[in-house]
């Protein structure tokens, strides 16, 4: 074998976590190769010109969770990442009214006040506590999860740090953390707010990417997860990446390349090569072998353990946990190329509101009913939607005067009755368009092209099992030292030299990059 096919480390999967991992390993002087099966880097963080002239962040479409230390360490702005502000959220209501939350506190108060004077005040305290909580959880995000049942010095040290940290939270924050870990987002928000559409719009953050309704216990944690976003040191700031989310992946890729990493696309990995319980490399679908003493899988836990590895190499207990690891993709995506912007009945005309998000979440009941449909095997007849118009923030996303809409839709269950097929996909797309057209009647005539993605489509293209955008649900039993499996939350696997760095590991999904970075830390420490 030629030395050209020998590396210090192989990263399987060129999604943002794989790229982050490779960039950090390369930064430490390792000779790294990333193997991406698609012809395009980025995984679920890609920008593609789906229709001529119209560019879409096909899957993930906003950014806020990306760890600031990764942005600094890899100097991503220098490599082309530019974050543009996405400030407002407007919830159109069936009665023709709306609820708006603006980037400005005074404007938000003025708007909320007309719905509920008490909520107009509560939202300030709520925001304070949540950003408090996000700060409180931040050190946990950048911590390799210790195993609480282990007596190893490393785990004990980690547990001590964790205990010390929880102690330092103070009573108010510790109690809030306990509640957020155990309650439903709906119950938690009931403690704060009275205005239905506000509770619904806030609780929507608690269901994204999970097969839970706003009334399912545990959804409050997902709510908090979405508050951990941090842009320029401000918590709960969402942004839009110029050029779409693919630009983030490309910036990370450029950072990795600048440090010598080799990034290969169109190179699907068939299997991990193991000798004497030790990883020695991978074999591609083509039969080509690439050797390295370290192999890192950025794929989700199912693919990492069940697809890439001969099951005889893994303990039964781990295999059982991975088989049980819940994916249950629950969301779809509809991308529209538009001749004009939707004209919302509640806010006629083109305005500042088009530069922010629209949330179809008129009430908690609406969201819960959307979940009920999915629970019983169908897609939501009246789905929750989070809509942005990237061309209003970055005009380069569409031809002059034209627009693109990115519609995140929930619920579209992976396991739908009778399975997904073309007819069902189009019916789902029609439901999304019909629902949105109730609030913006010109929508249908404005649609030039439509791309509808079900969880099955997401799985087929990106490889995300069951189309779960987080590589496994952010449910309490799948977090921290349980993510993805007891005993294997620290990025290692039972096979020496084989590591995991995808969102299936702590701290989970979103375009965060933390798993990729933490795994790199573990790998470098083990070396």
């Amino acid at each position: 074998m030629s030395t050209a096919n020998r590396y210090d480390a192989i990263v399987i999967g060129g999604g943002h976590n794989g790229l982050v991992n490779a960039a950090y390993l390369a930064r430490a002087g390792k000779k790294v190769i990333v193997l991406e099966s698609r012809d395009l880097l980025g995984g679920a963080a890609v920008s593609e010109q789906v229709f001529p002239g119209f560019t879409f962040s096909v899957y993930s479409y906003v950014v806020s969770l990306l760890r600031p230390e990764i942005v600094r360490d890899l100097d991503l702005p220098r490599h082309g990442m530019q974050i543009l502000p996405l400030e407002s959220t407007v919830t159109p209501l069936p009665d023709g009214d709306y609820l708006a939350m603006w980037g400005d506190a005074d404007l938000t108060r003025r708007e909320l006040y007309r719905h509920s004077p008490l909520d107009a005040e509560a939202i300030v305290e709520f925001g304070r506590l949540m950003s408090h909580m996000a700060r409180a959880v931040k050190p946990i995000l950048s911590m390799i999860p210790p195993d609480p049942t282990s007596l190893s010095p490393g785990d004990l040290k980690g547990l001590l740090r964790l205990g010390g940290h929880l102690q330092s939270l103070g009573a108010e924050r510790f109690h809030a953390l306990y509640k957020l870990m155990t309650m439903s987002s709906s119950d938690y928000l009931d403690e704060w707010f009275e205005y239905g559409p506000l509770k619904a719009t806030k609780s929507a953050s608690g269901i994204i990417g999970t097969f839970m309704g706003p009334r399912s216990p545990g959804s409050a944690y997902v709510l908090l997860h979405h508050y951990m976003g941090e842009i320029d040191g401000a918590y709960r700031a969402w942004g839009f990446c110029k050029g779409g989310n693919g630009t983030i992946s490309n910036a990370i890729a450029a950072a990795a390349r600048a440090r010598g990493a080799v990034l290969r696309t169109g190179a699907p990995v068939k299997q991990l090569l193991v000798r004497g319980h030790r990883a020695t490399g991978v074999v591609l679908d083509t039969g080509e072998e690439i050797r390295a003493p370290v192999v890192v899988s950025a794929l989700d836990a199912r693919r990492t353990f069940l697809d890439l590895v001969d099951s005889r190499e893994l303990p039964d207990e781990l295999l059982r946990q991975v088989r049980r690891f819940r994916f249950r993709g629950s969301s779809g995506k509809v991308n529209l190329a538009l001749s004009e912007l939707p004209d919302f009945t509640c806010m006629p005309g083109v305005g500042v509101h088009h530069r922010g998000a629209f949330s179809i979440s008129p009430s908690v009941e609406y969201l819960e009913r959307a979940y009920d449909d999915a629970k019983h095997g169908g897609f939501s007849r009246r789905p929750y939607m989070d809509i942005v118009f990237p061309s209003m923030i970055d005009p380069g996303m569409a031809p002059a005067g034209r627009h693109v809409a990115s519609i995140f839709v929930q619920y579209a269950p992976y396991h739908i009755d009778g399975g997904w097929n073309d007819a069902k996909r189009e019916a789902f797309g029609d439901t999304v368009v019909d629902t949105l057209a109730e609030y913006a009647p010109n929508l249908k005539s404005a649609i030039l092209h439509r791309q509808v993605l079900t969880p099955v489509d997401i799985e087929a293209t990106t490889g995300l099992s069951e189309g779960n955008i987080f590589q496994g649900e952010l449910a309490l039993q799948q977090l921290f030292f349980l993510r993805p499996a007891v005993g294997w939350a620290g990025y290692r696997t039972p096979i020496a030299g084989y590591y995991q760095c995808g969102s299936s590991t702590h701290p989970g999904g979103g375009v965060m990059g933390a798993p990729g970075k933490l795994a790199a830390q573990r790998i470098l420490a083990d070396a």
Partner: protein
Amino acid sequence: MRVPHSLKTTPFHARTARLVQGQTWRRWSGYAAASCYEFTHDREYTAIRSTAALIDVSPLYKYRITGADATRLLDRVVTRNVGKAEPGQVLYTSWCDARGKVIDDGTISRLGEQSYRLTSAEPGLRWLHRNAFGMQVAIEEVSEALGALALQGPLSRTVLNAVARDPVDALGYFRVMDNCIAGVDLQVSRTGYTGDLGYELWIPADGALAVWDALMAAGREHGLMPAGIWALDVARIEAGLVMLDVDYHSALRAVIEAQKSTPFELSLDWSVALDKAPYNGRRALLAEKARGPAWRFVGIEVDWDSFEALYAAVGLAPAIPAVAWRASVPIYREDRQVGYASSGCWSPLLKKYLMLAHLAAPHFAADTPVEIEVTVEHRRLRAHARVRKLPFFDPPRKKA
């Protein structure tokens, strides 16, 4: 859009907007408020201390509290003894959380046996509601329904008497009365944020312009001027009056414990009734009273010679910002930081450089020599200063 995508404007905006000459607007509680009307605030400040000034203070939050349990609610919330107030009396007070940390401060006007008006700097509706659970009380926010004007200065009484149906000569300090100006029924209280003789007028929004016009017309021959926040800020520093979000942070909004203050730490001891029935923070305040506060809110008077010398050393004349500053300035004693100033200004009246400051025990006694940080030509230096009792300025006419 149902709600304009803009700041709110006060009921006086149609008049004040025409008077602001330099586009010097600022935000105050979501309203557009004038920082000053002329290009600088000098004459507006002078009016407060020498003639009379008219200040639009409508952005204050105002709540009307009525019902059988109105007194009970307020006594549960605030540190003053509300039950002891007579109808027609106004109380300045702060209110605290259960740990005795100040949430806000403002005034309570007892308008009747079971009827009050509370003003606050931050929205307080939610806190009132939380505390009113199970009580027979109606809490109505009247922030937008009521315009408010502060008529302040030595000639304020003269101006007011010229237009008010009932003379205000007998209206005592911190008292409130019904009155009528330009056919508009309103209330006049002898209160203000300047430490001078002065009144505040509580005016139904739809009568606001008529009252403004009447006052401005009557005031012409007495040197009445509209004044903005910059002028008010200088006056309130001279008067030693604490300001929320500038000198302290609300316990409901502070991010860390260290950002919270007790009434004792803000030197509001006189407004803390420890002998009344249980109320929010009482237990903590009793304990604090027994052990003595860790901080005090005090005046700082900068030693001019020492201050001037720092500038003279680099060939400059002393420079003080033209507008009162709101920032954190370290205060030292014997090379240790013992506190910080949170606002300061040159007092054109007293001819002194004054600051409002928080000092740790035991450094807050009057006349304690301290040093303040001064940045001269990009270098951080220290000037001598002394701790002073507040207020700096307290003219007899204020209460006379």
